[in-house]
């Protein structure tokens, strides 16, 4: 698990989790759109968020999850919550 502000390590964790849920061969990069490029729907994204919440011991509010579009959005949100924990 990545610690604190280590965005690169967070990205690696996020990419690993997303890769197990992706429905396409699209490469997972910071700018990759989770819905449009990986074809992960809004129901699946909640399951992914729960996995990452457990990994970082954080809770991502539902309202914040609905703002997540790209992989970087998710990485940034996790980094932000992990820092203020």
């Amino acid at each position, binding site marked *: 698990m990545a610690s604190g502000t280590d965005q690169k390590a967070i990205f690696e964790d996020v990419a690993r989790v997303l890769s197990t849920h992706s429905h396409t061969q699209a490469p997972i990069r910071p700018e990759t759109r989770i819905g449009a490029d990986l074809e992960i729907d809004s129901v699946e994204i909640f399951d992914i968020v729960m996995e990452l*919440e457990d990994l970082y*011991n954080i809770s*991502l509010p*539902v309202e914040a999850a609905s703002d997540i579009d790209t992989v970087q959005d998710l990485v940034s949100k996790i980094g932000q919550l992990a820092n203020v*924990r």
Partner: protein
Amino acid sequence: MTSRRPTFSSEILSPTRALVDGREIILAGTNNYLGLTFSEAVKSAAIDAIARQGTATTGSRLANGTFREHIDLEEDLKTFFRAKSAVVFTTGYQANLAAISTLAGRGDHLLIDADSHACIYDGCRLSEAETIRFRHNSPEDLAKRLARLPDEGARLVVVEGLYSMLGDVAPLDEFVAVAHEHGAYLYVDEAHSVGCYGDRGRGLAEELGVLDKIDFLSGTFSKSFASIGGFCVSRHPGLDLMRLVSRPYLFTASGSPSNVAAARAAMGEMMNGPDLSRELMERAHQLHAGLTGAGFTPASPPGPIIAIPRPDELTAVREWNRLLEAGIYVNLAVPPATPHAKSLLRLSVSAAHSEDEINTIISAFRELT
């Protein structure tokens, strides 16, 4: 065979029968758990209310829309659920929208089961509290998420008694323990479970022996109560404050006299009539065993909702049409309205179903295999 779109209009004949395109079918997807929509006592009460009070209130509860019967219904609910306060709403949807959005505000936290009904999510949206989801029916996951919260602000945990899609029930006794151990209030939506579980249908919390420990309990009149409307009751006396600030309570017309009278009469039937919840569960066990014997695997143990997962959406739609052609109406439930993107044939049982009707439903399912 032509496939129908998965909705239909019908002429209702009884709690379990309807005419569709001039053909009589058996209804097995109405949520009419106790079959009281055709009870003579309930119908008479509604007709009498229209004769005495007219067809509508034409106003909000806070203005001209509180009739004596609205207050009487709230008193009946307090007695039925052994509660200190009760508020009646115009629909079940509005009950959750109003109560959840009013009980938690900015700086508070709402913790909701991941499989919550849309009205719970909408109530959370209308609230200014932060909403955290926990894994479905998992007190352990709830405990973990409660432990992560800051000390500031109130905490309200929201779960349902009986989940409407898969027909599984919540471990309410465990949720009570976890919520109260972490300083949270527990809110239980018993929309589907009131009438079906517990002594005289008082609900799942009563059946599990924790009714007096539930902080807030909501429900609808549109299922077992054979009417339209919703309610929230509480063991805390302060619930009445909601009447002054809750927008879904204030800014809508109150329930019609006939709806209020029907709900009161249905509650009277539940308390004083034949034990319909017992009859309902006998039919539920018969249907569950029959479908299992026919080679299907229900998603949950026997109960008033029996969901049959299908391998994909197309199969579910085809089978739904074949059942309707065979004279059986069930609910077709497909993603995104279902948990875990399941495609389901969803049946709801009624105490009004006869043993023969249940056997006919089972035979129709057997023909699908």
